[in-house]
């Protein structure tokens, strides 16, 4: 009984301090220091409309845009309210089937094999990045669709590419949404 009373008192104390107090503190800090990222790193158009988030991949199917990695989030993929990976074993034939539908979209051949991340779904289905290599792989298609020279597009890709892990990670990545925005703006 004494334990129960003490327990009830502690439930109240811990909720007040660890939930209300702690959350308020971090919320306040976030609002003060990083108001943009705290709201989800949203990208807004000139008109103030939300286009997306820097951190969240979105679906691109038109040839004039760079395409992100496949997504298993939600029914049609890229559902930022229901993130998910494919959860398929790397040995699963389902993955082979999925890859077989993706390969013709990119026109990959044995001579020009597809960079693997373009066939492999990300963990949350919302990975906003592809490697610089995978972006350059798509440059020809994008350039053709936009009537630009391939070199121009490749130049843009190289400008956008960055190395997130410094010396620990040799890969250079590009943010697909940012790259596509830059493409639209370059016009």
């Amino acid at each position, binding site marked *: 009984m004494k334990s129960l009373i003490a327990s009830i008192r502690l439930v109240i104390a811990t909720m007040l301090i660890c939930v209300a107090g702690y959350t308020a503190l971090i919320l306040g800090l976030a609002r003060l220091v990083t108001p943009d990222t705290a709201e989800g790193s949203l990208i807004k158009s000139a008109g103030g409309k939300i*286009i997306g988030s820097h*951190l969240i991949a979105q679906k691109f199917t038109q040839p004039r845009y760079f395409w992100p990695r496949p997504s298993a989030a939600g029914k049609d993929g890229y559902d930022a309210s229901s993130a998910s990976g494919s959860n398929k074993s790397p040995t699963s034939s389902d993955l082979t089937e999925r890859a077989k539908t993706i390969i013709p979209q990119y026109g990959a051949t044995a001579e020009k094999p597809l960079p693997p991340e373009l066939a492999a779904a990300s963990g949350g289905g919302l990975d906003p990045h592809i490697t610089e290599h995978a972006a350059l792989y798509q440059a020809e298609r994008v350039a053709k669709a936009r009537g630009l020279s391939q070199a121009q597009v490749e130049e843009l890709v190289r400008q956008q590419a960055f190395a997130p892990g410094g010396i620990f990670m040799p890969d250079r990545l590009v943010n697909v949404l940012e790259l596509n925005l830059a493409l639209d703006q370059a016009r």
Partner: protein
Amino acid sequence: MNAILFIALIVGGTAILSWPLGRCMKWAMDPDLARSAGAKKFDRLFQFFGGRFCAEQQNWKQYVVSMLVFNVLMFAVSFSLIGFQQHLPLNPDGKGAINADCIFNTAASFTSNTNLQHYSGEVTMSYLSQLFSLMWLQFVSAATGIAALAAMARGLAGRKNMGNFFVDLQRATFLVLLPIAIIVASLMVFGGMPMTLHGAAHASTLEGIEQTIARGPVAAFLTIKQIGTNGGGFFGPNCTHPFENPTFCTNILGSVSIILIPMGCVWMFGRIVGRMRHAAVVFVVMLVFLFAKISGAVWFEQAPTEAFANLPIEQNVGNLEGKELRFGATAGPLWAVLTTCTSNGSVDCMHDSLNPMTGLMPMIGMWLNTTFGGVGVGMINMFLYIVLAVFVAGMMVGRTPEFLGRRIEAREVKLAVIALFAHALFVLAPTALFAAIPDWGAKTLNNTGPHGFSEMLYEFSSANANNGSGFEGLGDNTIPWNVFTGTVMLLARFIPIILPLAIAGSLAAKRQTAESAGTLGVEDGTFGVMLFGTILFVGALTFFPAAALGPIAEHLQFMR
């Protein structure tokens, strides 16, 4: 080369950080009241919060009763909050009611520090449920573990009074978890993590598609989930979600926070017991297991995605299915091992999509459950193996086995082996049940053959180890899965806490014997090898057949 440096820096750096942390934790959890005025003031504050009962000293039985009462209340409060979330405030996206079996599973999961999630956070839970039910439990369930370790260590130090649970709980919550959470959460906020109470954002993409972007008070939630070895994500896919883990740096910070307190717990244990050399031996044994599993995981994950083998896809990169590019190639397997060595269970790549043998490493982590382990409880689990190792090694040196000067006799062995048997039972028995009943098991799987078996095996391994990660392809929000994993989580949480406390209580009551050259030393490398061997053998002999039918069969079938 980069990978080795990367891993060595994260693990080594955290190990170095854990040393001062252990010192602080000892100060916080087991203060020398006679000498520390600050600690006295805190104790008065804790008595103010918890009432006069907090001034009483408890023996191991009273301590356990208090712990259970508080934990029952934790379960009840969170169950009710989630159950009524549709009627409660802080629900900007209007989340609805949830099935009772899923609520049971979730409340059990978070009470037991497991955070196995048979729901998807951003789809199912209101902000109130996330914060006042789940995040609250992430604090107090972790604190329960730390408190239990402090009590056990006091018993092993020979004190008949194991302290007061309610004081220990507050010490762990307010003096250990909360300060670290505030620091780490601030860093996470700087790292670009969302922290808002606004509802989902509605975007219209460049191609004009509507996209609903779920968000929320992620930074606060994520932090305590990491440092308290909880692991339950704000979003369904956990730390693979860009909002829960936006950059390379937050990923490193996340990795560090997973093992920081579990490492510190070993030192805290050593300090309370007064045997730092013994703690060091235990620490090194844990570290060896950790590096062995990391090496295995990183090695096997270098193989490219097997499903793409004969397609026009580049084969020069490791398996990328279920991984995020921004963390780099080694981060996924490293995290997978860290999160399962400790009972954390957050993921930064999808374990279901790991290569077969890589997927075995997390399972080994959960089967052994002593490689630093959950906050507090990892060291408690380790104590069971220490009892066993001391018993066998003690006999081999020709004396009635003793640990820290107290004899390990029938009662201690009995309690320890019951806990170890329970550990095996709660993995193998329910997995067998679900393997035999296709409606419960096979029909809920996302993969076939050995990998499907791995999904079931993993689920119960995770529930039993209070880990919470999953081979998430499993369609586990069904009544059988919810009920069985929920029950396993609760039993596997409290049996391995209560029995070691009972052993410590029983040892504390014994006459302490002097140590001599003929006594088994628990502070040297030989004992370290013995302890290593004991853990390895018990684990391997118990789980090898299951491992063979899961990951090993899949590996032999596809990866040779």
